[in-house]
């Protein structure tokens, strides 16, 4: 997959729009997964995903292939998510905007435990600083190693280790407080 993506990226960097389309389509779920978990908000995640995909499409001509395409892609996606998070912090929040509010009425009953668990995960994630969230997401969702995460976040590997360690602890604590059991497995879109 990596070699294939890198080859596609090389073609896209050379102006091959079809290769770019295939590349974006192939990695859309991963980009979205990073944005979804770093932002811990469904709608914001879609906005950030769109921004990240535009940034990739726009910046692919500058992709020189020194790093793996996926590493570069994760960097773009993470930056898009963190930018969105910063923008969101600057925006005034409605009093009832507490994240993904569940539907009201009869639809509430349709929510299964899996959805409830995700909402709890989002709530737990929001207790973490965004930088910590990004480090944990890149490690445990995207399965990047520390060196790759350091490259994505542009911080030293020691900082990555620290953020992951503290982020995990905070996240485990938040999930435990909510009494949230591990959700049933789903097809993960963030696996690298």
């Amino acid at each position, binding site marked *: 997959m990596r070699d294939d993506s890198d080859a596609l990226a090389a073609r896209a960097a050379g*102006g091959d*729009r079809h290769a*770019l*389309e295939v590349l*974006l*389509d192939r990695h*859309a*779920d991963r980009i*979205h*997964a990073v944005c*979804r*978990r770093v932002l811990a908000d469904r709608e914001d995640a*879609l906005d950030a*995903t*769109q921004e990240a*995909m*535009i940034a*990739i*499409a*726009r910046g692919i*001509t500058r992709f020189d292939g020194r790093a793996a395409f996926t590493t570069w892609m994760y960097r773009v996606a993470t930056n898009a998510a963190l930018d969105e998070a910063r923008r969101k912090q600057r925006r005034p929040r409605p009093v009832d905007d507490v994240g993904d509010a569940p539907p009201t009425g009869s639809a509430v009953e349709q929510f299964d435990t899996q959805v409830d*668990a995700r909402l709890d*995960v989002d709530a*737990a994630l929001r207790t973490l600083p965004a930088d910590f969230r990004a480090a*944990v*997401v890149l*490690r*445990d*969702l995207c*399965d990047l*190693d*520390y060196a790759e995460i350091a490259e994505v976040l542009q911080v030293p*590997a*020691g900082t990555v*280790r620290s953020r*992951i*360690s503290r982020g*995990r602890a905070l*996240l*485990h604590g938040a*999930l435990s407080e909510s009494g*949230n059991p*591990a*959700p049933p*497995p*789903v*097809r*993960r*879109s*963030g696996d690298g």
Partner: protein
Amino acid sequence: MVDDPRDDELATHLAVEPLDDLTRRRLVQRALTETASDAVEPVRRDRSLLTRFVAAAAVLLVVAVGVVSLLTVADGGNDTTVAGRKSSNQSVQTTLQAGSGSAATEQLVPESSAEAGASATAADAAPTDAASNGAADASGLGAATNLGEVGDLSTRAARRRLLAAIDTATFSESAPLGVGGLTGSCPLSPVPRFLAYGTAAVDGRDAFVVVNERTDGSRRVRLVVTDPCEVRQLR
């Protein structure tokens, strides 16, 4: 540094369901659409840069060709002169008869206003007969007649005799001439149509006699004295 192992429990919590096809396609298409103009713009920018480069190169080329042309014309004039000079082996038809000095007064008229009032003191030095053997040679004066060494022109009488000889002489042809090689740093402008030239001496200084034809057919005689450069009009 050894990485901590992935936290599988957190990995399970963090897992995100894939986007539905409609949403994915919408995201991809919008990204492509948003950057479609960007894909064209670099080409336009490249073309614009290329156009500017070509225009600049064309201007430089024109300037370079112009400079080279000017240099070529300047050199070519000399070359033409040399060619004409080499081809003109005809014998001189003119014989300058060095006459006896007369009492008539004649003044050297410096061309520069600073020397306008200066006059040469007449003396009775006679021009040499060498002037009678002028011939077109390799002195850089092309088809003009080489008067040869016309002698010491320090005296008014000598200059008068020279002028008289020139007046009666018949020159084979005239030619436009670059005289830079002859006069060195001495300017002679505008470059006239030359009939004859020769070497001379004035007060111990080397000099050149240059005869050219005015547009009305009359002859102008100038004396170019060196060290320092000085152009005197004899007529």
